[in-house]
């Protein structure tokens, strides 16, 4: 195992040491291949696309959270000069249903709208303003229905069903987890009812793309997404066109965080393009973006832990209710995570837990970084602090004592079969140096230059958290990725090209793929082909899985290519292939002696291989007990937050947000740090300020004026310790990196605020009024 810490003592190498095109193997941090394009403004994001003769599409959305559509009159809109098409559900040629897990959502509403913002009609016009004005002229007659907006009422017997054909009524999914027999008595019992607000992914690049009809009934869609192939299938189904009649191409993605796993404008732009015969561009405004993607589920959490007098856990009981909103999206899988992982990285002899997700008329919720574990973590970490206080234990040592270790079963009975350094991670963050005393600079005080306080009512607090997350797709899903690797000669040099459908969303997968190809093929020059559906699926850029799964596929394809090249070289050289390696663009002997140039071996005959790669299978947990090996890998992280709280004004300043995380193997150490820093701040945002406010099914704050995300003034310095305990089952020993920091940072911040304010705060985000009330 190795450990690395920032600040590091080694200075960053000069830029010349890591030019993007030709250097950087596994464990290096080469410059991003797309970095220069991104700093010069040339990188083509999905909202930057332009096509000769293109027109603009806009969406008309429902103002009501629940209503029957009585009639739609598009006459006036169609008559507006510059308008090419106005479409409603009646114009959908295929099956008017989309959805990641259940196809329960119409691409355009039919007889009923189930949330505010549901798409009802589309317009294509020569200018976005023309299209918007025409959309405003569409007359939709609604009969407003009572809206189900309290998820706790969703399963009451007298509550009307939002999807009458859904077999379990308003229950999207329920996952019970039972283990170890009846819940015993315990000398110490702590419990909490905790509430987590609805968080938004708030990626900066709006939902957008360009659909170009091919004149033969098919379409090419250039779009920002996380998973091209699931989009492709849904688009083709709604359009009623054959396989591969919709070809999807990844346009530049301005962040994702789960919010691009469901369709947004994909089908709509294609419908308009096929109807008008013109290329159609759609690009959401920020307001529309808040209605255009799913959010993180708000959750009600009832937890109870029983323990011995010394704080050793005897049992965990929990009931988690996730508000899925109007359509299922990935609620089922979120509930799966909330259930199977809901008690955190601790050893519980007895477990009785149920997680459920329900339909309501609130905004649909689905994937966001941390996926079901974020919500649960606030409750289990609250209780670990409560337990420590009750038994008079140190909160860090209490966590360390109860923390999972390698070889332990988790609450679904799955043995953790690689490192589970819970105790080490939490002790590491405790042992990091603490920030100095509060200065007098206003910027360092809660409220900052707002000059709201000079420090009289400011108290400092420290909070801890340790959490874990499954990596990759779980519960028996056939989780694989496809890679094509080709070695050929260009301008006398060997070049490896790598083609996958994996979505680069900012995390740096393009660098990682090139690093793997350089490592496996010993070449300097690697080209990453644009991601599209011309190759098989790579699965989603989610669940922290791409370095693991697409990385695994790229490695496997490289191995096949390498074997063929060495075979060929062995024939020419008259030596066994097993004695040869590729290195430095050469074929070399075991001892490193150069035997041939790789370019000479390849000559005019490139070598190409395409392969699918899958991780170990998982199983669906038992429907009664939740037991089973549901997940393929677990990733652990811990945070310590230090905050200053003005207890009179309710203002919070996070002074430090320090973390330790086990990443298995840092394929690209700089990118690992970037993920941990960005992920930590998103978790902090949920604890402090980020909430989509919904009243009676209406979103009250769909803008960056009213939905606040952390700015550079809100963001503390972060000390990061990265552990590398390789997972022997994963390629190179990697462990997913992206999500864990978002899970453990928020509960640490919330705990630090509770400590500073001396208040029993049981909801996030914690707003000033909660602190002063």
């Amino acid at each position, binding site marked *: 195992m190795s450990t690395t810490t920032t600040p590091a003592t080694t200075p960053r190498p000069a830029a010349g040491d890591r030019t993007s095109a030709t250097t950087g193997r596994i464990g290096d*941090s080469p410059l991003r291949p797309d970095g220069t394009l991104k700093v010069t403004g040339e990188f083509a994001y999905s909202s930057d696309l332009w096509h000769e003769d293109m027109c603009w599409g806009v969406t008309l959305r429902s103002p009501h959270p629940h209503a029957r559509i009585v009639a739609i009159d598009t006459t006036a809109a169609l008559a507006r000069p510059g308008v090419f098409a106005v479409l409603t559900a009646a114009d959908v040629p295929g099956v008017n249903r989309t959805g990641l897990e259940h196809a329960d959502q119409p691409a355009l509403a039919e007889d009923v709208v189930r949330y505010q913002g549901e798409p009802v009609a589309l317009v294509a016009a020569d200018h976005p303003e023309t299209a918007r004005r025409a959309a405003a002229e569409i007359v939709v007659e609604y009969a407003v229905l009572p809206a189900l907006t309290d998820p706790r009422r969703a399963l009451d017997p007298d509550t009307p069903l939002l999807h009458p054909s859904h077999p379990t009524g308003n229950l999207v999914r329920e996952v019970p987890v039972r283990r170890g027999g009846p819940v015993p008595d315990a000398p110490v019992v702590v419990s909490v009812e905790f509430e987590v607000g609805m968080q938004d992914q708030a990626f900066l690049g709006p939902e957008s793309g360009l659909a170009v009809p091919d004149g033969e009934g098919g379409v090419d869609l250039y779009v920002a997404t996380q998973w091209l192939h699931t989009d492709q299938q849904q688009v083709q189904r709604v359009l009623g066109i054959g396989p591969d009649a919709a070809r999807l191409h990844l346009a530049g993605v301005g962040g994702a965080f789960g919010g691009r796993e469901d369709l947004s404008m994909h089908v709509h732009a294609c419908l308009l393009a096929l109807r008008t015969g013109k290329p159609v561009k759609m690009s959401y405004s920020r307001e529309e973006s808040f209605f255009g993607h799913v959010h993180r589920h708000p959750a009600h959490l009832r937890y109870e832990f029983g323990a011995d007098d010394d704080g050793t856990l005897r049992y965990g009981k929990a009931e988690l209710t996730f508000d899925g909103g109007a359509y299922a999206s990935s609620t089922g899988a979120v509930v799966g995570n909330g259930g199977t992982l809901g008690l955190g990285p601790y050893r519980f002899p007895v477990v009785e837990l149920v997680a459920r997700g329900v339909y309501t008329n609130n905004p649909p919720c689905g994937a966001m970084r941390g996926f079901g574990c974020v919500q649960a973590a606030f409750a289990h970490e609250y209780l670990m602090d409560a337990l420590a206080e009750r038994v008079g234990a140190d909160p860090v040592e209490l966590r360390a004592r109860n923390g999972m270790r390698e070889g332990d079963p988790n609450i679904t009975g799955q043995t953790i079969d690689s490192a589970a350094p819970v105790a080490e991670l939490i002790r590491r963050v405790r042992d990091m140096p603490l920030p100095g005393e509060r200065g007098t600079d206003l910027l360092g005080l809660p409220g900052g230059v707002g000059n709201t306080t000079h420090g009289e009512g400011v108290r400092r607090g420290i909070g801890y958290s340790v959490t874990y997350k499954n990596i990759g797709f779980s519960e028996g899903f056939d989780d694989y990725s496809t890679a094509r690797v080709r070695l050929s000669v260009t301008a006398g040099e060997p070049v490896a090209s790598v083609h996958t459908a994996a979505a680069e969303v900012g995390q740096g997968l393009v660098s990682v793929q090139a690093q793997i190809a350089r490592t496996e093929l010993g070449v300097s020059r690697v080209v990453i082909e644009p991601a599209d559906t011309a190759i098989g699926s790579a699965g989603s850029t989610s669940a922290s899985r791409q370095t693991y799964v697409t990385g695994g596929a790229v490695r496997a394809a490289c191995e096949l290519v390498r074997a063929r090249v060495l075979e060929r070289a062995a024939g020419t050289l008259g030596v066994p292939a097993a004695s040869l390696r590729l290195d430095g663009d050469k074929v070399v002997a075991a001892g490193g002696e150069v035997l041939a140039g790789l370019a000479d071996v390849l000559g005019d005959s490139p070598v190409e291989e395409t392969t699918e790669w899958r991780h170990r299978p998982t199983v669906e947990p038992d429907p009664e007990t939740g037991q089973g090996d549901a997940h393929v890998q677990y990733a652990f992280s811990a945070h310590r937050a230090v905050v200053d709280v003005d207890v009179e004004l309710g203002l919070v300043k996070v002074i430090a947000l320090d973390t330790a995380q086990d990443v298995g193997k840092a394929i690209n150490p700089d990118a690992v740090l970037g993920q941990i820093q960005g992920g930590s701040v998103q978790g902090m945002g949920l604890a402090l300020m980020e909430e989509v406010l919904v009243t009676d099914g209406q979103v009250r704050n769909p803008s960056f004026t009213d939905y606040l995300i952390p*700015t550079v003034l809100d963001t503390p*310095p972060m000390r990061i310790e990265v552990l590398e305990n390789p997972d022997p089952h994963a390629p190179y020993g990697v462990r997913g990196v992206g999500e864990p920091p978002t899970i453990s940072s928020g509960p640490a911040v919330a705990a630090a605020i509770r400590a500073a304010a001396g208040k029993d705060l049981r909801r996030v985000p914690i707003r000033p009024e909660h602190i002063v009330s």
Partner: protein
Amino acid sequence: MHIELTVNGSPREADDVWPGESLLYVLRERLGLPGAKNACEQGECGSCTVYLDGTPVCSCLVAAGQAGGREVTTVEGLADGSGEDRDLDPVQRAFVENGAVQCGFCTPGLIVSTHDLLERNPSPSDPEIREALAGNLCRCTGYEKILDAVCSASGARMDTVRSASGARMGTVRSVDTDRTGATGDLR
């Protein structure tokens, strides 16, 4: 409406501009300069930041008509030359080299804001940097590596100034001591 303006040193014009169009829309959709970004179009995120007569503005808040006859510099105008041989501005180079770019959607705005900060204050302190960039949202990076990049660009600029005046070259990270947090590389 017809408008004429100077963009990145060249005279440009656009016809049939609807009066409600912003400078951002004209740059992106009419002049083929999508570098300035459209993350909010409400003046809240800074992704659309460009220079207007030398002052950084949110171009989404500037009506296209207001920009008539004026000089605009976008992120596309900061590097010298074009193509492979182009010479990146030190701020652009620092963002690439310090890992300050993930999805990159915030990057053009941050680069213009940083460029402006360093024009006014060649070696800003950590609080000064934070204050100057408070209007630029980034959702991916947690800002740490952006701060690294600004410090590094500031050092690089000072180096350029120093070497031009014959003084000894400093190290790129010499001004980094103001930063209290993690700034180092992981290796």
